[in-house]
């Protein structure tokens, strides 16, 4: 494979160029990527700002959820204390788990990706900066409002896993549970948005020459992470949607008395919930791999092994969800599958651990702050991994499940696998964004307290679990031997808290945020591109990458990059831009023009959060107004993008010319749309699984579906819709108006097909509240209605653009993407119409 795109690799030889670059180029870049002033900080979209905001907010949630943990440990210090009353404790433990998982862990690693990836890949920014800004603000505003529910006693109290029927309207009548279900809503949206951003960013905006096998390991980790989010999150999106519909409208998805099944929720939840653990762990492991190499002062041993280990983890982690359900009465053989996969998934983890140890062994490891946290992390994570193997054994899990043994295990895994690496990363990368590094002297204390505190807090919990102490208890009776382990745990928890407090002191003393005003520099001597001198526009020029640690291999690189002797030493179009490269070999393909700061992503985020929060407190009018305003804001932000550009091809350095506008499968927009469609497809697939699951578990409630024959005309209509959508793309060459007309017609035909499907079901006298079958069938129709509504909106948006002359010929991305969405909508409709009539048809 000499070339992926026809680009001649020999062209790389032209760099570094010889000539001095004009001074104005650098001033132009500074002006174009200028610093926000005053309230403009709210509108910033540059990853240097959004990344920091994002990480800071995630860390704030870590601190707040940590305080909740200390409250719980205080309550459990001795038997039958009354520091937190029963009801409050139940809210506090629910919030601790929810906030740590949804508002800290996932956003924190996503934030690290947003902050670090462009620098590491030497891109000017991530490909969809406004989407990053939107994802951040929706998360920050929504998350803070959600957290505030605990101050007014309205926080959810059903546990972070929210098992129905405890969380159904009958047993949780208040709006506490709705806070969880809707509160998780915008976190799901923001996670998916971030994942799309990261996948396209990693695959398409790498510096030229950064082939897959030269990609920093952290970028690999983030790629696997983002793909996993795309596959796993749809399951929880569907789950929360269904449970909220059950609570609001009484559709019995999980109600066993009406043909639903509480176990369906557990499958949907854990199909997300277990990969979630690896979603959190992999980016942190990626950071570990980066930091270990620098700490050892040597190249990472087993780079390829680690890459494949991470990909294998990504795969196999989707085969372990039901190991949270070994005690639900699943048939023994089925538990065996999940036990086997749980064993298999520990092999890649072992590979990574021994790669880190091997790297330390060949180098001369330094015991600096990142080094200490890396070593501590290995010890803690391995301990957690070993107890993980124990509970992967089904008979042992029958005893350990839902006991404090699990609490110990999961904290070892998450603190060792994510929190310690994150602290290592704080120490390691803060010099990149701060004028001053953190204190090495204080770091030893922070590490000591955290490491010791962690072990003192969680080691005794193994014992408490084996003694028979169940999880999620607000107190325990005296005389069972639980007193001593719990008291020790509480002492340890406060030691851990003290360590974190000391870290805050260090931050307050030394952290001086200054994107674009110089930084502490490459304190630890890292070899990857994020340590190139950079400003708000990232690096002055974008280097040609010839190895995994370019800074170690080419000591002159930083200087040459700074002098503008590589790709894109100026703004070629006078706007924000970055080079889009090919996914495997990173050959330059075209120049992407990027949107700049805008109030609209911020507005869209505020209204999105407003929509969900208003729904929670049942202010329906306000919710709908907010929802409509959110959609308008999104459309308004898109309106400025995808404009026709006059400059057809530009010089991106050394007379290499690339186009500035590309359509079709090579464009970054196409990639993002395809990923979004994968997300929607997964949501729909999980809904189809729900239908099949209920039909096999609650056959007594099953009614024969309408005959398959009724679907024939529906299928025909959907086929027409697909044909029209494809025509729209083809006939744009001739006329934008015919093209838009075909799109509108396709959307209309799809809607008509959906209408026929609906009529066919409603005349079968199966209502959505009648049984689990009815509920899922109508949920499928509702999902289809959502897709159809979005399709109509997109077609109308294209029509509006055509009217204003914003649809250039012969190809246009807005038209392309709408076409893709319409084809998907029709395909989803066909699948739904067929499967819903086939499942349970024989019985």
């Amino acid at each position, binding site marked *: 494979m000499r070339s992926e795109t026809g680009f001649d690799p020999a062209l790389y030889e032209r760099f570094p160029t010889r000539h001095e670059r004009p001074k104005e180029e650098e001033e132009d870049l500074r002006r174009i990527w200028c610093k926000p002033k005053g309230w403009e900080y709210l509108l910033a979209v540059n990853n240097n700002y959004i990344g920091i905001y994002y990480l800071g907010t995630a860390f704030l949630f870590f601190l707040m959820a940590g305080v909740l943990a200390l409250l719980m440990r205080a309550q459990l210090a001795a038997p039958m204390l009354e520091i937190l009353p029963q009801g409050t404790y139940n809210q506090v433990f629910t919030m601790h788990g929810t906030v740590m998982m949804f508002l800290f862990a996932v956003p924190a690693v996503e934030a690290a990706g947003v902050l670090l990836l462009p620098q590491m890949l030497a891109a000017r920014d991530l490909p969809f900066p406004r989407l990053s800004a939107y994802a951040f603000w929706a998360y920050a505003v929504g998350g803070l409002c959600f957290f505030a529910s605990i101050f007014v006693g309205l926080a959810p109290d059903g546990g972070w896993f929210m*098992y129905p029927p405890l969380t159904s309207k009958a047993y949780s009548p208040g709006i506490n549970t709705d806070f969880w279900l809707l509160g998780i809503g915008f976190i799901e949206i923001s996670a998916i948005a971030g994942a799309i951003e990261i996948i396209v960013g990693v695959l398409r905006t790498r510096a030229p020459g950064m082939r897959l096998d030269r990609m920093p390991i952290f970028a690999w980790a983030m790629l696997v992470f983002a793909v996993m989010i795309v596959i796993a999150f749809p399951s929880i999106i569907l789950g929360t949607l269904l449970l909220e519909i059950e609570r609001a409208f009484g559709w019995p998805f999980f109600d066993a008395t009406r043909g639903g099944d509480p176990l369906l929720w557990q499958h949907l939840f854990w199909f997300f919930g277990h990969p979630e653990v690896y979603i959190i762990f992999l980016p942190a492991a990626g950071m570990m791999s980066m930091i270990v190499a620098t700490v050892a002062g040597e190249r990472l041993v087993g780079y390829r092994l680690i890459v494949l280990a991470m990909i294998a983890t990504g795969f196999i982690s989707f085969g372990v969800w039901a190991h949270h359900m070994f005690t639900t009465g699943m048939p023994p053989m089925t538990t065996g599958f999940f036990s086997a996969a749980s*064993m298999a998934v520990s092999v890649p983890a072992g590979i990574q651990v021994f790669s880190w140890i*091997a790297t*330390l*062994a060949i180098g001369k490891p330094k015991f600096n702050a990142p080094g200490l946290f890396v070593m501590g992390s290995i010890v803690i994570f391995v301990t957690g991994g070993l107890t993980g193997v124990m509970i992967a*054994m089904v008979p042992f899990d029958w005893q350990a499940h839902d006991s404090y043994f699990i609490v110990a295990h999961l904290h070892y895994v998450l603190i060792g696998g994510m929190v310690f690496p994150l602290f290592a990363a704080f120490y390691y990368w803060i010099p990149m964004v701060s004028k001053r590094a953190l204190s090495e002297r204080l770091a030893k204390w922070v590490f000591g307290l955290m490491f010791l505190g962690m072990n003192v807090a969680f080691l005794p919990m193994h*014992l408490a679990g084996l003694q028979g102490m169940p999880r999620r208890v607000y107190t325990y009776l005296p005389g069972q031997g639980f007193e001593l382990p719990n008291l020790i745990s509480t002492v340890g928890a406060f030691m851990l808290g003290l360590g974190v407090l000391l870290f805050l002191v260090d931050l307050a003393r030394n952290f001086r945020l200054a994107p674009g005003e110089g930084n502490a520099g490459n304190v630890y001597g890292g070899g990857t591109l994020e340590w190139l001198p950079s400003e708000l526009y990232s690096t002055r020029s974008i280097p040609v990458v010839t190895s995994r640690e370019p800074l170690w291999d080419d000591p002159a690189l930083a200087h040459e990059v700074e002098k503008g002797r590589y790709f894109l030493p100026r703004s070629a179009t006078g706007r924000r831009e970055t080079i889009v490269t090919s996914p495997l070999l990173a050959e330059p393909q075209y120049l992407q023009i990027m949107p700049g700061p805008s109030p609209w992503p911020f507005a869209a985020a505020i209204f999105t959060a407003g929509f969900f929060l208003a729904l929670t407190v049942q202010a329906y009018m306000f919710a709908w107004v907010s929802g409509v305003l959110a959609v308008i804001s999104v459309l308004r932000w898109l309106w400025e993008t995808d404009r026709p550009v006059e400059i057809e091809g530009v010089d991106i350095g050394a007379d290499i010319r690339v186009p500035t506008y590309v359509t079709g499968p090579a464009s970054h927009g196409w990639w993002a749309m395809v990923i979004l469609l994968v997300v929607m497809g997964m949501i729909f697939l999980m809904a189809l699984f729900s239908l099949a699951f209920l039909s096999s578990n609650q056959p007594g409630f099953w009614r024969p579906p309408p005959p398959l024959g009724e679907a024939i005309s529906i299928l025909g209509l959907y086929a027409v819709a697909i044909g029209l959508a494809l025509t729209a793309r083809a006939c744009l060459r001739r006329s934008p108006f015919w093209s838009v007309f075909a799109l509108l017609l396709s959307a209309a035909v799809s809607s008509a097909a959906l209408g026929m499907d609906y009529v066919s079901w409603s005349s079968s006298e199966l209502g959505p509240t009648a049984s689990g079958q009815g509920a899922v069938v109508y949920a499928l129709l509702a999902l289809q209605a959502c897709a159809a509504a979005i399709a109509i909106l997109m077609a109308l948006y294209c029509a509006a653009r055509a009217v204003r002359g914003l649809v250039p010929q012969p190809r246009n991305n807005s038209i392309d993407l709408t076409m893709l969405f319409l084809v998907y909508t029709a395909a989803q409709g066909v699948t739904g119409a067929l499967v819903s009539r086939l499942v349970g048809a024989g019985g």
Partner: protein
Amino acid sequence: MTERTLPSEGWPPAVLDPAGPYSEPVTLLAWVLLAGGTVILAIVLGALWIALRGSPRLKTRLGGEKAIWILGFAFPSVVLTGLLVWGLMLTSSLSAARVPEGAMRVKVIGEIWWWRVHYQDGQGRETLRDANELHIPIGQPVLLELEAADVIHSFWVPRLGGKMDMIPGRTNRLLIEADAPGIYKGQCAEYCGGPHALMGFVVVAHTPADFARWQASRLPSQGAGGEGLALFLSSGCAACHTIRGTPARGLAGPDLTHVGSRRTLGAGILPNNPGTMAGWVADSQAIKPANRMPAYHQFSGEELQALTAYLVSLK
């Protein structure tokens, strides 16, 4: 009746102190896993130590892909394969998918926040109803049919076997057996809201002879009746509780026909004596907040006495 009330202090830990054939093999597995895990942790720590402080010769050995393959792939693959085979065979032999001959059958239904116990004969016909206490003979496997009336609960007696969830709409099966007479503590293991922490129960294991005597004593109430019974019937207690042999037929709360003979009150949390009975009847909310029985503030001292005396007499 010889009774052994263990473990009172949590030592040895219940999971490592098995009392029957459905917990013993798991304890062995637990010990092997704990010991093996410790050894492997020691190996990793040793390797980390060598990497950080070892001699150059050892460091070179550790610092290559070969070491990663051996320690990170080959070794775990072998160990895990062995464990998996053992685990699967044990799963197969302990699971209630196959019921041994002559097993006693009991249906246990989880309620918020107590346990309904229905004894059955060999054909699955109900023979006796009780609550919060399970009596079994030693040396005989007991097949539990576990159901839930409201939300998900989980049945767990660590010394007699693993846990099994009780899920609305399903009947899960679990086998337990005790080797020695005694009282074995149980606890709900699945978070079920409110006072989930205070949802306990006890399993009482008898010798076969004692068990037969116990069974014979489970007749409809021969209690004293009188003022206590009258109060019970007139104060609304009967709306929720059944006392066989009286007009009290309520089904929402625990069957009280033999409440006086139970070891505990409030689902495994309080000792059972006239004092605790009076306290529970008058104000159970102070003892187990949010439980479904309201506080009864209307009784005079004498009335509370009479009611307590009656309930205690229901042996």
